[in-house]
C-alpha cells in the first residue's frame, strides 16, 4: 500500500519551505545561544553577506558577539533616572519653553523676526533710490540673502532626531556671499547719491546699524536652539544667518553702491558676529 501524504501535510511543508528568514531572527538565535539551521536559513545566508559573516566558521563571530552582549557592568537605572529627572525639572523659563516648541513653530518664529525687521526697513527706513533701483538686481540680491537666512535657520533648528551632517560648508558659503555680491558691478540707476559722511563714518554707521538690528535675531535663535552650548557648526550657522539678515536689511536701507563700503560696512557684519559668538563660547566653556 503506498503512502500518500495528506493535503494538510503537503501545504504545511510548502509553507515551511517558502518561509523567509529575517536578519533579526538569525541575530536573536545567536543571542539565545542557538545555532540557526534549515533550508530557509541557508537560503538567507547565501543572499545576505552580513549574516554569512556572523555564522561563518562555526558561528565564531556570532558566539563572540553573544558572549560580549551578556557581559558589561551592571547599571543603576534608578540613580541615573533620578539625576536625569532633576535636570528635566530644571527646564523652566523662557528658553526652556521656546526650545521645546515643535521645529516648524521655532522656524516660523525665527523667520517672523527677520520679516518684521525687513518690513520696518521697507516702511520706515527705505533707501532713497528704492523706486528707481533695478527690480531684477534688487530681487536677486534680496533672494540670495533670503536663501541664506532660510537655509541657516533650517540647519540650525534641525532636530537631533534626524540624521544630519555638519553643514559647515553651507555656513561658510553664506558667510562669504555678501563679499561676493559687493564685488558685482554697480547697478545702473538714475539716482545721484550725495554722501556727506567720510568713508569711515559711513561704514561704521552701516556696520553698527545692521549689526545692532540683527542682535535680536541672534538672541532669538540662541533661545530657540536646543543644544547646550554652541557647537562649531551652530556657531558658523548663527553668524551666517546674522550676516545674511544684516545685509538684507542694509540692502533695503543703504544706497551706497561703492564696493569697499559694502565690504567693510555690510559684509563684515557676519564675520564680526562670528568673533563675538566665538569669544562668548570660549568664555562660557572656560
Amino acid at each position, binding site marked *: 500500500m503506498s503512502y500518500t501524504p495528506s493535503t494538510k501535510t503537503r501545504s504545511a511543508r510548502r509553507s515551511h519551505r517558502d518561509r523567509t528568514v529575517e536578519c533579526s531572527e538569525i541575530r536573536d538565535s545567536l543571542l539565545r545561544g542557538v545555532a540557526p539551521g534549515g533550508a530557509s536559513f541557508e537560503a538567507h545566508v547565501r543572499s545576505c553577506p552580513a549574516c554569512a559573516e556572523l555564522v561563518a566558521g562555526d558561528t565564531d563571530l556570532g558566539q563572540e558577539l553573544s558572549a*560580549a552582549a551578556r557581559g558589561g557592568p551592571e547599571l543603576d537605572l534608578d540613580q541615573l533616572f533620578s539625576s536625569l529627572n532633576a*535636570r528635566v525639572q530644571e527646564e523652566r523659563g523662557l528658553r526652556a519653553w521656546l526650545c521645546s516648541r515643535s521645529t516648524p513653530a521655532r522656524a516660523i518664529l525665527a523667520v517672523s523676526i527677520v520679516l518684521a525687521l525687513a518690513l520696518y526697513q521697507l516702511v520706515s527706513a527705505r533707501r532713497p533710490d528704492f523706486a528707481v533701483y533695478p527690480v531684477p538686481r534688487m530681487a536677486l540680491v534680496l533672494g540670495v540673502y533670503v536663501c541664506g537666512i532660510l537655509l541657516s535657520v533650517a540647519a540650525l533648528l534641525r532636530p*537631533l532626531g534626524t540624521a544630519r551632517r555638519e553643514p559647515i560648508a553651507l555656513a561658510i558659503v553664506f558667510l562669504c556671499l555678501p563679499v561676493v555680491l559687493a564685488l558685482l558691478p554697480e547697478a545702473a540707476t538714475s539716482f545721484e547719491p550725495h554722501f556727506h559722511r567720510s568713508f569711515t563714518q559711513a561704514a561704521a554707521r552701516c556696520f553698527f546699524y545692521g549689526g545692532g538690528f540683527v542682535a535680536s535675531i541672534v538672541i532669538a535663535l540662541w533661545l530657540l536652539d536646543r*543644544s547646550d552650548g554652541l*557647537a562649531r557648526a551652530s556657531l558658523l550657522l548663527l553668524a551666517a544667518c546674522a550676516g545674511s539678515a544684516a545685509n538684507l536689511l542694509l540692502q533695503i536701507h543703504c544706497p551706497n553702491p561703492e564696493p569697499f563700503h559694502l565690504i567693510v560696512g555690510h559684509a563684515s557684519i557676519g564675520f564680526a558676529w562670528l568673533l563675538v559668538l566665538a569669544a562668548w563660547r570660549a568664555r562660557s566653556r572656560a
Partner: protein
Amino acid sequence: MVAYAGGDSAAFRELFQRYAPVLLGLLARQLRARDEANDLLQQTFLQLHRARFDFDPGQRFKPWIFTIALNLKREYFRRARRRPESSLDDERMAEPSVEARGAMRWEAHRDLVRGLDKVRPDQREVIELHWFAGLSFSEIGECLGLTANAVKVRAHRGYTALRAALGPDAASIPLPE
C-alpha cells in the same frame, strides 16, 4: 512617546527603563569613561524631552532616539578631538564600578571592545546598532541617513573586519586612522 508628549510623566520613566540600558551600552563601549557615557545618556533623554512635540506618531521611536544619541556622540567626539588633553585610546577603559556579572563575561566584553576599535568607525557604528541595539537594517538606515542596502554593505564589511580583528592575527592589525 505620544503619551509623554500629551503630558503623561510616567511614560517618560517607562521610556527610560526600556531604552536606557541599550543606549548606555552603545555609548559606554565607545566613550569608555562611565561618567561621560552616563552624561551623554542623560543628554539624550533631555533632548528627547525638549523635542517631545517634534515626534511624529507615525514614525518609529527606536531609530529616532538612537539618532539623537548618535548625533550627541558625534558632537562629543568632535569636541574631544579639539581638546589637547583628551585621550581616546584604550587606556581610558574604566574598570567596572560595580560588580561585573562574571569575570569571563567581562573579559569577553573587553576583548570585543578592543576588536571593535580596529574596525572603521562607520562600520563599527552599524555593528553596534545592528547587533547590540537590535535595530533592523532599515532602521539603521533611518538613523544614519542611508539606504538599507548601503547599511548591509557596511555591516558585511564591518563583520569581516571584526572577525579578522578577533582572530589569531589580531595583534598585527592597526587601529583605523
